[in-house]
């Protein structure tokens, strides 16, 4: 890690650290609940290990920029500024949930902070993000739109169609591919003839960049640049973030027992923990002390605990909620 290249205020580093930690501890708590109780029923795809991507990207955005997400939504939601309590309540299926309990883990949104929803359909939100960027361009606004998606989404034709249209019209959209090297149980090489996802931008005359997705600063810098270009009207960028999910595809297990991946592989990636990495850097730069760190952990833990209490204490939606919110004025 070249410290000399760090051109980021310590305030931002702190924000990144806190954001990543909020995601991590939230997710660890969810894993805990999933393992030990039936309080959360809906399928949860945990983001642990990938925190640097959501954090680095969203840190480069304004509040009124848009983000679209996937089945693995919690990290994006929190990084963009969604309310943690209401996220937990959503997982519990409560009426105070960010989606009133109708969406569950895979369908969370927080419109006030530009978090425009997550789709459980692989690649489903990619064209939506392009469409929002298209609106921004028609409106003459300077906002940008981000599509988060996994490596699996690059199997779907809509990924290519969306890149083509975005580049053709030079739209202010950033395509953020979180390449965690698996699509459910399938390693990426079993699905893609060429696993270099960033290269797929080239055939649409669009810049494509691969970045270490466990390095929050790199992710932030690359995104900042892409956002700058987008705001200037120079069109979209595809950013491939190489990363890894620690847990299995869905739920709290590690997918090790079923022979889907090796303990060595997991260990390798756990050693490359994005949070520890930033922490080390911040210690080195002297912008984080042991006491501060403890305090941050304390605060975040408390926030998570409060979210759980909020979720537990909230009522379930009433029966007639089932029929509401389909078509409204």
């Amino acid at each position, binding site marked *: 890690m070249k410290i000399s290249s760090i051109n980021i205020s310590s305030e931002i580093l702190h924000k990144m650290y806190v954001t990543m930690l909020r995601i991590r501890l939230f997710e660890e708590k969810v894993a805990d609940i999933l393992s030990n109780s039936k309080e959360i029923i809906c399928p949860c795809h945990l983001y642990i290990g990938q925190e640097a991507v959501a954090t680095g990207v969203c840190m480069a955005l304004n509040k009124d920029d848009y983000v679209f997400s996937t089945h693995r939504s919690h990290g994006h939601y929190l990084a963009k500024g969604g309310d943690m309590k209401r996220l937990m309540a959503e997982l519990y299926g409560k009426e105070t949930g960010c989606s009133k309990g109708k969406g569950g883990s895979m369908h969370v949104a927080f419109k006030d902070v530009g978090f425009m929803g997550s789709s459980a359909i692989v690649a489903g939100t990619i*064209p939506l993000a392009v469409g929002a960027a298209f609106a*921004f361009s028609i409106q003459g606004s300077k906002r940008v739109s981000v599509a988060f998606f996994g490596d699996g989404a690059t199997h779907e034709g809509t990924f290519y169609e969306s890149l083509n249209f975005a580049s053709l019209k030079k739209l202010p959209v950033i395509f953020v591919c979180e390449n965690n090297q698996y699509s459910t149980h399938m390693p990426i090489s079993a699905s893609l003839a060429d696993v270099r996802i960033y290269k797929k931008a080239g055939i649409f005359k669009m810049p494509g960049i691969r970045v270490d997705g466990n390095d929050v600063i790199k992710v932030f810098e690359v995104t900042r640049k892409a956002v700058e270009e987008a705001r200037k009207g120079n069109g979209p960028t595809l950013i491939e973030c190489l990363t890894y999910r620690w847990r299995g595809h869905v739920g709290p297990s590690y997918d090790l027992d079923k022979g889907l991946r090796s303990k060595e592989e997991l260990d390798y990636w756990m050693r490359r923990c994005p949070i520890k990495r930033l922490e080390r850097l911040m210690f080195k730069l002297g912008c984080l002390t042991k006491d501060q760190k403890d305090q941050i952990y304390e605060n975040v833990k408390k926030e998570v605990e409060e979210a759980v209490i909020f979720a537990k204490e909230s009522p379930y939606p009433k029966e007639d909620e089932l029929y509401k919110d389909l078509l409204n004025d």
Partner: protein
Amino acid sequence: MIKMRRLLYHQAINEALHQLIERDPRVFLIGQGVTSPWYVGRTTVGLIHRFGPKRIIDTPVSENSITGIAIGAALAGMRPILVHPRMDFMYYAMDQLANHAATWRYMFGNQFSIPLTIWGIVNRGGGQAAQHSQSLQAIFMHIPGFKIVMPSTPYDAKGLLVSAVEDNNPVLYIDDRWLYNCEGEVPEDLYKVPIGKGIVRREGKDVTLAATSYMVVEALKAAKVLEGEGIDIEVIDIRSLKPLDKEILINSVKKTGRFIIVDGGWRTCGVSAEILSIITTEAYDYLKAPALRLALPDVPAPASPALEKVYYLNSEKIIVKVRELMSDKN
């Protein structure tokens, strides 16, 4: 004072588009062929010259993503009109339509509106065969999350398009090109025809003929012929499939006691099955004879003109069905 002129159906659509796009900067038109001189009938004539390529967007052949893009734009405050020049091509876009447009408001507890008009054109006959002739209203009526209209007159073509564009939900606006040269009175200014209301096109006391889209034209023709045979037909233009105006149908059956639904889509699990089910459960006590349905046979469209004649519905086939109903022992 409302200024009326006689316009053709496709001119009514064209005029509505001009006025809607002119009036509201959030409205734009996107889809295949919107700048083409022939692709979508003549409904888009003059638009590209007047509004330019920022608001009249002709697109690559990428139906699914273009649909998603229109949805995304709607989420970001626009009011897009998305055209699919043939309903057959909408199969490519089903994921964005059914899993996204139809769910986005519900799934997130009413945080979002999708003020999106999905304009699906039924374009058949002339030997276009199985992949260029489909009338898929039933599929979209089945999937929760859409409003659906099928105007049958120039007046409604304009008025329902305005309502669709002003609605804050995905509205599927389906027109049949066999209606494009129908003429009728159309006000010059913008006006709305309410979504959710059917209309009695002809009063009668013996049989209720409820019809969708172009089938209304054929039903009216049939009614005229049957008048000569002393059978007095009430013709109801369903106009809005979702929400459906059940009342107008049930009220008519109360009067006539006999009911036939005529729909230009396929029969099985079709619009005709749904409406028949409503009548036979909710107007059961008023029926003097079994309610009947008339719809496309359950086969793909054939190319040969000899087979098209057998395939498509028309006033003669409606007349036969009415006679069958009247001859029923009841």
